[in-house]
Each structure stands twice: as structure tokens, then as C-alpha cells.
């Protein structure tokens, strides 16, 4: 990155470009500055022949199911029919209309209604607005009034809709695997409760995940009062035990740290995925992104340092990233604490960590007292968290960039000891009855607890869950859980703000809520979910007009005055904890999977096919090793290795990941399920098989052995490389401040065209994507999939390069593989004004609209794929097979009725969510007014946590998009092709510390 960090006098503004010298269209930059070389994969960096390593072309091959004769027959038939029936309409068929008997007010088959509710992730609520059409939920959007969402959603929130309509959801109460009834279950539970009453409930146990629901917590308290001998255990495989333990050590009580990134100028993360994986990450990402976007009025940026082991999204966007093994983070944290001036802290840096790097970070933190922030990761031991608390205290950040509140959850116990205690009691024969509320300990519990072995010892065990999963199989009873989209409930978000969860539809399969299960134990088996939640709040809220309060809370999606206020904390004077003996040997790191989390989304095809943000891998988990380690052991992507750790072995495929610390191996939880459903069962390897309660996050002593087998991985990376072109333009804030126009210096000047330009007089729909703000979280991809009925194609098709996502997020590296700088780039259809695809379509199936959209008309398309071949951005997707599901009943309800469900043989691509544009146009025209700026929001834009995507009418001079189009950082992708894209980018500006030298 020589010309980024060391601008030569001749060329103060050298900037991004892909090997400009080798690209025929570009001259070498003046002044001899070395061109910035971006690479997508390690093979590309090594200079291996890309032709050899390129994925096969997405064309039918000999291995395909369609033979040559079949192909010709089909082609002939489709051509004959295409010419004749085009535009003549469909023959009259016996279709019928069944209107309501009594139409509910406000409901029409074509009118969308939005309901405010919440979706929880690991217990914490994100406020959402769910779109409902004709009585069925269709699409999740963020709730702008909710503090954890601010209008954004994460990939899990977007994919919740598919889980809701999952055909594999459990549909009936099961007793020892046999269909039973709710009434029979209630009778059994009532009998248990009666028998236990004399024993004060000594044999009763309830196991939940993180509970932030006030009504459920109140029921659990009532249950424990009624049965004082009973116990409430909490288990969450991806938990925050370290945060709680550290709070106890540092403050003598459990408090939740809450970050205020809008106040932070310098941020240091210690193995923390701050922008992606914490409760509140959506809001953190928004605040981070807002301080990240460079505008002409604000040539300032925050600065992010990431010290981390396994590369994360946070590390990907960091200005400086230091790869350190998980076990070494503590030493680094100690050294930083000592340098910052934390009393009693001493530490020596582990080998390989540059002292001047740390010194520069410390200096930067020190000069931003009160506006800096140090965040420790959930997987780091309590000592690191205590150090972070102390550093923040010394730097005067407490109360400004970090505040402390009462715990958001209702039972802040250590998950690991809580589950271990339950296992001990079961083994001791003390447990007669176990109620498992929406948790899957048989799959997720540490392997040494052997939950699968001990659960059958419980005489009566009841599992409430969405699926008949591993735990359900071993329980005596299973009850289908009502999904959050069909439930009454309540939940708190990261800052305590409470949302009443309201249903969008009656439970599809008669599912029950956790509140209803508890009500059975508490002697109210007939209570409805609605009555339980409303009844709880009626007791809590002493207001004359409760009905009004209730309606207002439902309408807003937040309950007023529930945000937890910051509270003062005092650091205990005990000295910083002594260093624990550092494990030795090769390190193993456990991480939740970036898309299917701890395994709960394993049966969600959208999330399985969603590329993992760092590897663009789909449908599998891998064993990640550093390039250096791979070189030493002779490993390359897809080599199957055997992992031996504490006497257990697991086999998984290797992925060589740039930026992974050396002698450190990351495994991802969530795969290797045995009872996930038709999508998620039996794919990947089960990393839980290696996870023990002694070391749930990382440990030494891993042995890694090459087996000689290889495994096919379905990756999206490398299938659509844009070689030798100036794709991501990037620079530093320093360069920008010197010359704001530096990014424009190497823009190709077009010589013009012989044709007169088309006058776009009306709306000129355009998009701008800010590469400084984009964190590469991929929420936009799932949002697009949900909005536009994009099918799931499966691993085999992805491996052939036939994935269907209309929007992809490309990822480029720059620098050394051991510690590269990364850029992400969302690429939707560019909606070129001079669209190359349109010229080659023989049947006019892709044409230009009068407002400049590149329309795709599915019913005209005959599938020549010429357009895709002629698209320089490779954003068109072809239905090689009948990917869209026309038969599974529950999935028919999922489809967005405003978008055609495409058939086999049809090309498709991003439409700028034209259904939303046309809808807004019609509403504006009916009301006789122009469309307001911000009225049309595309699905990707709505989901984006950092507001990196802006959409609008660039003919309106006052619109946000019009201003961005004239920004000095604005550039078009492959502008030299004269395609005149409507989608343009704002160059990626990073804010590296000038005192740190990057090689």
C-alpha cells in the first residue's frame, strides 16, 4: 500500500486501481507510484493461473441432468411457443375469486399493512416493522423508532420470514415421538406439578435461553415462589459469561456495558466483533458508519483499531488490524493498560507484536481522552474485560463512550455453571421434571456434559421448540413453539427498551409461547398468549387508560420509559487479576457461524446460501488457518484435516484465510446437525464435538493432521472477478484532506458518443453506495432475497457459479496475506443508461424504461443468456432449473405478491425494487403530488445498518442522491466502458494512523 501510506511528492493522491499497468485501458500513473494491487483470493495473489482455478462456467455440462437431445427439444419447443403466444395473454382458465364473508376493516388483497413488533437474537430484541399482505406476513423491515434498529435489520432478522414458513417446522405435540395433543401434555404436566407440590418442587427444573421478557421472567419468579425447591437454569452456547464475570470482578455486581459510538473518535477492539455480533451491534454499526462517512462538510473520520484472532467484520473495516492469537490478546491488553496508566498493570508483549504499533495506539488513545473506547470481546476471559473497564476509566471514557446499566436480562447467571449444575443434578438423580424452553442443549452443550447421555435420565422432560431437533428427540414431550411472528410476547433490547411482540397471523401449527408453557405449571393451562402478556402489563402499568397505553405501545413498537438509564459504577480497588497460565501449542478458536449462528438457523436456506462475509463460502463450515501455517503443512482450500483436541477428533475442510493469526485455527459452530430438517441436517462438521466447558472459546493443544482427502466447497469468491480494472477506489483521510478530488485523478475521460443523449426529464432513479461506510455484513443480500422472491439453489448449483443473489458483496484485499487491508463492495445491477445487455437481447426481454431503469421482462425472456454474457458487471442471474418452489404449500405463502416468481429458463437481475418505485409513483399520482425524497427505499437500502446505500431521484436537485452524485468521491464502476451506470460508488476512505507503517 506504498502510495497510500507514503504519498510521493509527484503524486500526492495515488489511489486505488487494480494493476493499472497491466490493464490495457490505463496508462501507468504519473510519478511512478506503484499501483495499488487488489486481490480477491490467495491464489490470485500468488499469481496462479486464474483460468485454471476459475470455477466452471455456469453452463450445462456433461454431468448435468439435461441431455443434448432433451436440450434441443426444449429449445425448439420454447422458441416455437415464444413467437406465437407473446403478448396475446393467457387462455381463459377456470379461475375463481373467493371474497371474505365479512371483510376485516382495512384489509384488501393488494394493500400492505405494517405491524411493529420485535425479533430477538440470543434474547435481545431488535425492533421491526413486518409487512402483511392479505393477512400473511411477507417481509421484515427495521423499526426506525426502535433504538436497537433505527430502521436497520441484520441478516438474521431478514431471514426470520423463511424460518417462519419453514415446511419442516414442528406441527404437533409429540409424546415419546408419537403424535399427541396439547391437552394430554397439559394433563401430564399438571400431574407432575401436583406430585411435586409436596416436595416443594425439588425435582423440577426449567432451562431457558437468555430471558429478557418481563412477562416470562415474572411467570418464572411466580413459579419459583410456588415451588421453592425448583431451579431456573439458563444456557446459551454463544454467551456473555465473560462479560458478567468481569463485571462482578471489576464492579462487584453485574452491570451491562453499553457503548456510544457516536461519541467515540478512537476505538480499540480486543477480539470483539463490535459491529456485528454484540447485542446492540446494529445501532453500533449505525453510529460507527455515520462517523465513517466523509462528506464535503465533514472531512473527519473516526479511527478503529482491531486486535483480534479470527478475522471478523469489525476487523475487516478497521483502519489497523493486528492479528494476535486469542490466547495472546490478554498480554497485549495488559501492555496497553500499563502504557495507558492503569494502576498495577504490567505486561510484556508476546513475540511478533510490534511495540511501536502498540505505542502508536496508546498515544492515539491517550490524546482522545473521553472520546476513545476500548471494547473487549465476549470470547476473551474476564481479565481482558476488567482491563478494558480500567482503561476506559483511566481515559475518562466512562459516561461518555461507554455507560453501564442494570443487566438487561432477568437471570444474569453464568451459562456454563448453570448448565453444569443442571447436568450434575440430573446425574445425581435429583431431577424428575425438566422443561426446556426453546433451547437445544443436546446439540449445543459442552461435550463433557454429555447432555445426550443424561437427558433420558429425566423421567419427564418437555421440550418447546420450533423444530423437532436433537433435544426434542430425546425428550418425553415436544410442543411446537409459536414463532415470534405469530406470538404475543415481550422482549428487551440491548439498552432495556421493551417491545411488546405482537402476532402477524394466528399460529400456523397451533404453536405455544413460552408464557403459555409456564402458565400450565402455574395452574392456568387455558390462558391465551395474549391474555398472559396483556395481563402482565396491566398489572405493571398503573394508568387510568390502559387500553390507550397498550395500543400506543403496540403501535410504536416500544414501551415508553423502559430504556435503562446509565448508572454510576465504582471500580473495585482490587488489583488487576494476575495472568492465568497461558495455554501452549496450536490454538483452537470456537466461533458461532456468521450466517447460521450457533446452529439455530441451520435449516434456513437463505442463510445457508448467504455467503459468509469473510470467505464468501456457502453451505459449509471450514477450518480456518493462516496462509503461513497452510504453507508449512502443505494445506490448501478444501483439504480435509483431522482435528485432535483433548482426546476428541473431528474432520473438516481447510480454508486458508488471509489475516488469520499464525498457529491459530478457527472452527465454526452450528454445522453437523443431525435433526435440523431437510436443509440443515448432515452438512458441515460439528465443532461442538470439540468444545468443552473448560475452554468454550479457545485453548491450546490442538493437533492438526492432513488426511489426504479433499472436499468441494461452494464459494462465491473468485467466480466473478473483475481483473485488472479499477474497481474499488480507495484512499486515506490524509490524502482526502490534502486534495479532496484525489480520487478523480485517474478517472478515464470518455471521448463522447456519436448519439445524442436521451433526455431523462422525469424521475431519474439512481443509487449511491458509500464504500467507506459499508461493513460487509451482507444484510442487504438477504433483504433483497426476501423482497424479490429470489430462490435458493443449493450447494451443487452454487459450486457451478449459479447462485441467484441479485446483489453480491465483493471483497477485495490489499497488502500482505498475513495481515491485509480489506474492502467490501456491494454490486447490484448498475442500471446502465447505455446498457450492453439490452443491445443483444433477440426478443426485447430487457429494455430501457423511460425513467432509465433497465427493465427485465420475464414473460418475454426465452433464455438465450446473451444479456448475461454481455454484462460487464456480471449481475445477471439465470434460472438454469426450476429453482423457485411452486409446490411446497407453506412456501407459497412466503412469496412477495408484488414480484413475479420466475420460472426455469428465465434471466433475472436487480430491478432497483421497481415494485416499490411503481407503488410510490402510483400513490403520489393518486394524491396529485411529486414523489418525496426518501419515499422510495429499496430493500437493500432499508436493511443497511450503516446507511451506506442511498437511493432516489437524482433529477431532484434537493435530494440526497443528487448531492451524492456530485460528491468528489463519487465514481462509476468501469466508467471507461461508457455504460453510464445509475449505480455509483463513493470511494473508500480509511483513516490510518500516520505513525503506523503498513507494509
Amino acid at each position, binding site marked *: 500500500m506504498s502510495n497510500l501510506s507514503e504519498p510521493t511528492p509527484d503524486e500526492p493522491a495515488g489511489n486505488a486501481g487494480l494493476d493499472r499497468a497491466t490493464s490495457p485501458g490505463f496508462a501507468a500513473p504519473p510519478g511512478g507510484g506503484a499501483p495499488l494491487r487488489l486481490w480477491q483470493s490467495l491464489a490470485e495473489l500468488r499469481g496462479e493461473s486464474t483460468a485454471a482455478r476459475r470455477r466452471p462456467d455456469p453452463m450445462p455440462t456433461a454431468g448435468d441432468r439435461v441431455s443434448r437431445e432433451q436440450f434441443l427439444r426444449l429449445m425448439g419447443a420454447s422458441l416455437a411457443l415464444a413467437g406465437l403466444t407473446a403478448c396475446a395473454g393467457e387462455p381463459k382458465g377456470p379461475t375463481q375469486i*373467493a371474497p371474505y364473508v365479512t371483510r376485516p376493516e382495512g384489509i384488501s388483497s393488494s394493500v400492505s399493512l405494517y405491524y411493529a413488533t420485535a425479533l430477538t437474537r440470543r434474547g435481545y430484541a431488535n425492533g421491526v416493522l413486518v409487512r402483511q399482505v392479505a393477512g400473511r406476513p411477507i417481509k421484515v423491515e427495521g423499526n426506525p423508532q426502535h433504538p436497537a434498529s433505527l430502521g436497520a435489520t441484520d441478516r438474521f432478522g431478514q431471514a426470520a420470514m423463511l424460518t417462519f414458513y419453514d415446511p419442516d417446522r414442528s406441527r404437533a405435540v409429540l409424546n415419546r415421538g408419537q403424535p399427541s395433543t396439547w391437552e394430554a401434555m397439559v394433563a401430564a404436566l399438571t400431574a407432575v406439578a401436583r406430585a411435586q407440590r409436596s416436595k416443594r418442587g425439588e425435582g423440577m427444573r426449567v432451562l431457558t435461553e437468555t430471558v429478557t421478557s418481563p412477562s416470562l421472567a415474572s411467570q418464572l419468579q411466580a413459579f419459583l415462589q410456588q415451588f421453592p425447591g425448583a431451579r431456573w437454569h439458563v444456557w446459551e452456547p454463544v454467551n456473555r459469561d465473560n462479560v458478567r464475570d468481569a463485571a462482578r470482578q471489576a464492579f462487584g455486581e453485574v452491570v451491562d456495558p453499553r457503548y456510544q459510538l457516536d461519541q467515540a473518535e478512537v476505538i480499540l477492539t480486543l477480539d470483539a466483533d463490535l459491529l456485528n455480533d454484540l447485542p446492540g451491534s446494529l445501532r453500533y454499526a449505525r453510529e460507527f458508519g455515520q462517523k465513517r462517512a466523509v462528506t464535503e462538510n465533514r472531512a473527519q473520520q473516526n479511527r478503529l483499531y482491531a486486535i483480534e484472532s479470527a478475522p471478523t467484520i469489525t476487523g475487516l473495516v478497521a483502519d489497523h488490524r493486528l492479528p494476535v492469537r486469542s490466547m495472546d490478546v490478554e498480554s497485549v491488553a495488559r501492555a496497553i493498560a500499563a502504557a495507558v496508566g492503569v494502576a498495577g498493570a504490567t505486561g510484556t508483549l508476546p513475540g511478533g507484536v510490534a511495540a511501536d504499533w502498540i505505542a502508536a495506539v496508546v498515544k492515539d488513545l491517550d490524546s482522545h481522552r473521553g472520546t476513545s473506547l476500548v471494547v473487549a470481546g465476549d470470547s476473551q476471559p474476564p481479565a481482558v474485560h476488567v482491563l478494558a473497564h480500567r482503561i476506559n476509566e483511566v481515559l475518562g471514557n466512562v459516561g461518555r463512550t461507554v455507560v453501564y446499566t442494570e443487566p438487561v436480562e432477568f437471570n444474569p447467571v453464568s451459562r456454563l455453571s448453570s448448565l453444569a449444575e443442571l447436568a450434575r443434578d440430573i446425574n445425581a438423580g435429583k431431577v424428575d421434571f425438566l422443561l426446556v424452553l426453546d433451547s437445544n442443549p443436546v446439540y449445543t452443550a459442552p461435550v463433557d456434559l454429555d447432555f445426550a447421555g443424561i437427558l433420558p435420565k429425566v423421567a419427564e422432560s418437555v421440550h418447546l421448540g420450533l423444530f423437532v431437533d436433537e433435544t426434542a428427540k430425546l425428550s418425553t414431550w415436544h410442543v411446537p413453539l409459536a414463532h415470534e411472528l405469530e406470538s404475543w410476547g415481550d422482549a428487551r433490547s440491548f439498552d432495556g427498551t421493551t417491545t411488546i411482540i405482537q402476532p402477524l397471523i394466528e399460529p400456523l401449527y397451533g404453536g405455544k409461547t413460552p408464557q403459555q408453557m409456564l402458565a400450565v405449571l402455574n395452574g392456568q393451562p387455558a390462558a391465551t398468549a395474549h391474555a398472559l402478556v396483556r395481563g402482565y402489563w396491566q398489572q405493571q402499568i398503573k394508568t387510568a387508560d390502559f387500553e390507550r397505553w397498550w395500543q400506543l405501545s403496540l403501535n410504536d413498537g416500544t414501551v415508553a420509559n423502559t430504556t435503562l438509564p446509565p448508572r454510576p459504577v465504582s471500580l473495585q480497588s482490587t488489583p488487576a487479576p494476575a495472568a492465568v497460565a497461558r495455554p501452549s501449542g496450536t490454538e483452537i478458536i470456537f466461533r458461532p457461524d456468521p450466517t447460521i449462528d450457533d446452529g439455530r438457523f441451520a435449516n434456513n436456506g437463505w442463510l445457508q446460501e448467504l455467503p459468509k462475509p469473510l470467505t464468501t463460502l456457502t453451505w459449509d463450515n471450514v477450518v480456518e488457518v493462516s496462509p503461513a501455517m497452510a504453507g508449512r503443512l502443505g494445506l490448501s482450500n478444501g483439504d480435509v484435516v483431522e482435528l485432535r483436541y483433548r482426546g476428541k477428533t473431528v474432520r473438516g475442510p481447510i480454508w486458508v484465510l488471509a489475516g488469520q493469526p499464525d498457529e491459530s485455527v478457527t472452527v465454526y459452530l452450528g454445522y453437523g446437525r443431525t435433526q435440523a430438517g431437510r436443509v440443515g441436517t448432515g452438512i458441515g462438521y460439528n465443532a461442538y464435538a470439540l468444545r468443552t466447558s473448560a475452554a468454550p472459546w479457545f485453548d491450546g493443544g490442538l493437533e492438526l493432521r492432513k488426511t489426504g482427502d479433499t472436499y468441494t466447497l461452494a464459494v462465491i469468491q473468485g467466480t466473478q472477478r473483475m481483473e485488472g480494472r479499477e474497481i474499488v477506489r480507495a484512499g486515506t483521510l490524509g490524502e482526502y484532506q490534502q486534495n479532496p478530488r484525489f480520487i478523480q485523478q485517474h478517472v478515464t475521460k470518455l471521448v463522447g458518443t456519436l448519439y445524442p443523449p436521451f433526455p431523462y426529464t422525469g424521475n431519474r432513479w439512481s443509487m449511491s453506495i458509500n464504500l467507506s461506510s459499508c461493513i460487509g455484513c451482507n444484510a442487504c443480500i438477504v433483504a433483497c432475497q426476501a423482497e424479490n422472491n429470489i430462490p435458493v439453489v443449493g450447494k451443487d448449483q452454487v459450486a457451478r457459479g449459479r447462485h441467484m443473489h441479485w446483489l453480491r458483496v465483493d471483497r477485495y484485499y490489499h497488502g500482505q496475506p498475513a495481515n491485509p487491508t480489506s474492502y467490501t463492495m456491494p454490486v447490484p445491477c448498475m442500471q446502465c443508461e447505455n446498457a450492453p445487455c439490452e443491445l443483444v437481447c433477440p426478443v426485447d426481454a430487457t429494455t430501457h424504461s423511460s425513467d432509465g431503469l433497465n427493465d427485465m421482462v420475464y414473460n418475454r425472456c426465452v433464455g438465450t443468456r446473451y444479456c448475461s454474457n454481455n454484462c460487464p458487471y456480471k449481475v445477471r442471474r439465470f434460472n438454469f432449473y426450476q429453482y423457485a418452489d411452486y409446490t411446497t404449500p407453506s412456501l407459497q405463502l412466503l412469496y412477495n405478491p408484488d414480484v413475479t416468481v420466475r420460472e426455469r429458463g428465465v434471466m433475472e437481475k436487480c430491478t432497483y425494487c421497481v415494485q416499490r418505485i411503481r407503488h410510490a409513483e402510483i400513490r403520489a399520482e393518486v394524491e396529485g403530488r411529486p414523489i418525496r425524497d426518501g419515499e422510495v427505499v429499496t430493500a437493500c437500502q432499508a436493511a443497511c445498518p450503516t446507511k451506506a446505500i442511498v437511493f432516489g431521484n437524482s433529477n431532484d436537485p434537493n435530494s440526497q442522491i443528487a448531492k451524492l452524485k456530485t460528491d468528489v468521491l463519487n465514481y462509476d464502476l468501469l466508467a471507461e466502458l461508457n455504460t453510464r451506470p445509475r449505480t455509483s460508488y463513493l470511494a473508500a476512505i480509511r483513516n490510518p494512523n500516520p505513525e503506523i507503517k503498513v507494509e
Partner: protein
Amino acid sequence: MAQVFPRRANVVARVGLSGGIGVVLILSALYWVYLRTPAFTGVGAPVAQPVPFSHQIHAGELGIDCRYCHTTVETSAFAGMPDTKTCMNCHSIVLTRDPRLAPVRESFRTGKAIHWNTVNNLPDYVYFDHSIHIAKGIGCSSCHGAVDQEPVMTKAASLQMGFCINCHMHPEQQVRPRDQIFNMSWQPPANQAVVGAELVKEYNIQTKISCSDCHR
């Protein structure tokens, strides 16, 4: 070796080839024509219904406004089909024992919907919106014909793409004052070309057509 083909094979081949092409062309042309005839489009053919509902009586003789039953025509894409309750608003008082209305009473009693046979149906890949047409001065009868004269509902126009495009290119031929939209007997005045052009301007009607206006 003897010749396999006799001399006349040349003629047979020539005639056969050109004849074959000709037959294909003729058949294609016939099919093209067929697709535009009522036999295919269903225009003018009465559609039987479970209840012999007469628009002639309700809309014509009784003068009930279209929007009494088709409630969402001004606000949403779908004009709206009346729920059973709308029928029963009157028919719990009028013709309460008429056997022709038995399915309506049955539906109201059991809560099961009446299944009407569709008369005007667009393919799934066409997204038509009633509200914008009403707002821009296109009357019901422009597409649905003189519904108030029909004892049994029939399809009045093919609703094929040519029918839509024709009007979208020349809206001045069909546009009418907004107060005439629900007037079933509205006929273009003699000076429609002039009045229509003025209305097109006044209502800000776009004549630019894009595929994605209807297909998406």
C-alpha cells in the same frame, strides 16, 4: 449401383419443402388470428356464477354505485370483491327467501366464502392497478363495458397487451372528466379529441410506456 431416388424426387422435395414452409406459415397465421378472436379471449361470452347476480338490476335499475361493492377501487390495485356481508346488508331484508340467494345465505351462515367465477383475469405477470386509472380519468366502462346493461357479466375487452398499449399511447381517446368515471353510459363527445387532449394535460397523464410499469 441403381439410383436410389427417381427423377421426380427433385420435384417432390421442392414442393414438399416449400409446401411445408407454407403450411407452417399458414397455420401460424391462423393461430395468430385465433388468439385474437373471442373464441380465445372469451370476450362477450357470459360466465355462469353460483348466484345469478345481475349487474343490470343492481347497477342499472337500482342505481347502486359501483363503489358500494367494489370498495377499494379508488385506493388500491384490486377493485375489491364484495364480501357476503355486503350482499346481506340488503338481502337480510329484501328477497330473504329467494332460492336464487340460497348460496349467499349459506355462506353467511357457515362463514364459507362464495366462489365466484372470474370474468376479467390478467396473467400473474401483469400488475394492474385500478386506483391510478380511476385517478387519471379512465372510467369503468372503458374496460368493462356497459355493465349496467348486463344481466350476466361478460368480458367486454380482450385485456390483451395491445388493448392496454393502444389506450396508453392515445389516452385522449378514452379519458373523461373525473365526475363521469362511474357513469356507465358515458360516450365520448364529438369533440373528444380536443377535450381529451385538455384532460390529458390537466390530469398529467404520461404517455411514456415502460415494461416495468406492468411487468416486474
